[in-house]
């Protein structure tokens, strides 16, 4: 079955919106994140915490000083993600990713996962439609 690309995108966005709203209600209000803006970080997975109440993707990002900063990106919880195609091995150490986040208000190196892209072009949303009916 084929689906119009824009239609699919709308569905994905709607699912993402629902997911974000749901997570906020489930646990907290995202008050520490600046939800009015987005930031893109490029790096590789250092560690992926498949844990409650949130997953955490720890991403090593090269900095301007020639070193590496580790960014913490908060994501949806395993129970939610597992019903939407994710598993604890979806992100493995060394995986290269371009991640869009809603950054921390205080400027510290972290944020909330919005979407990510692998070098292959694969998009990694944390909303998405339920894959396990």
């Amino acid at each position, binding site marked *: 079955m084929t689906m119009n690309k824009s239609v699919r995108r709308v569905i994905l*966005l*709607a*699912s*993402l*919106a*629902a*997911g*974000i*709203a*749901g*997570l*906020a*209600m*489930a*646990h*907290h*209000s*995202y*008050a*520490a*994140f600046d*939800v*009015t803006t987005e930031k893109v970080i490029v790096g590789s997975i*250092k*560690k992926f*915490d*498949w*844990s*409650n*109440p*949130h997953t*955490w993707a*720890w991403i090593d990002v090269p900095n301007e000083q020639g070193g590496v900063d*580790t960014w*913490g990106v*908060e994501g949806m*919880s*395993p*129970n*939610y993600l*597992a*019903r939407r195609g994710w598993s*604890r091995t979806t992100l493995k150490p060394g995986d290269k990713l371009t991640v869009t986040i*809603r950054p*921390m208000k205080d400027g*510290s*190196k*972290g944020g*909330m996962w919005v979407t990510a892209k692998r070098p292959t072009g694969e998009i990694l949303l944390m909303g998405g439609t*339920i894959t*396990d*009916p």
Partner: protein
Amino acid sequence: MHSPRQIVFGFLIASLALATSANAQSAGQRVVRKAPTAADWDAIAKLPDFTGVWEAGGGGGGGGGGGRAAAPAAAQAGTRGGAAPATGAPAARGGGRAGGRGGAGRGGPSLTPEYAAKAKATPPPAAEENLTANCLPPGLPGIMTQPYPYEFLLTPGQVTIISEAYTEVRHIYTDGRPLPEDPDPNFYGTSVGHWDGNTLVVDTVGFAQVPRGLNFPYSDKLKVTERFQLTDPDTMSIETTITDPLALTAPYSMGTRTLRRHRNWTIAEYICEENNRNGVDENGKAHINLANPEASPK
């Protein structure tokens, strides 16, 4: 003159009488359950099939909230997304706002003058003051507006609801017992239910001032009434109404939430304390701990 044996026997009889009396007294407080019979189980088989795992999903109705919002707005769901009662814990301190944002498009609760004054005196906590960020679970009705699944279990004399979020459990007694007159206030209250045709009607009383997703001040006379029914074989509607003779001038409808059954789902573990990096400090300020990634459990 009685023989020692007679005296001992008399003492035993007296003790037994005392013990029986104590049991009878406690029976007034606690219902002693009989072992279920085959007929009891047969009776359950004739009830609407509520069993299994259910979830509201995106746009799942009044309490579900959020599903229709655009992404940036939805990301602020704690402050404005969805139905107000669905937000985590603004009533943690008995505060809240008069009127509120209402449930599913309704006008919000109508507060008595006394409670309107209370609402005014205690400004509504900001979204970031949500104590559930510290893994404190929400009480009723907030427990029923979570975005995660619920499992329903029907056994003789009881309906049990397991909420995946925070691994919360509700016990609804359907054995005919009355609501307690002076229950200890707690998170979920004390629930009794009865079947009105194909609708499970649940009344709950006995609420402490803890996070429960209400954005207005309420008294210890708060009562929550829920009506659960199947609207098609895999769809359940839950209509929730709140009364409070001290705080509300009229019953407050939280609207109807719709759950869908997922027959191949099981409830997942959700131990909030496992790796919680979110929190709210004593001043109500939200924070996130980004230090020491290696400290997280997995």
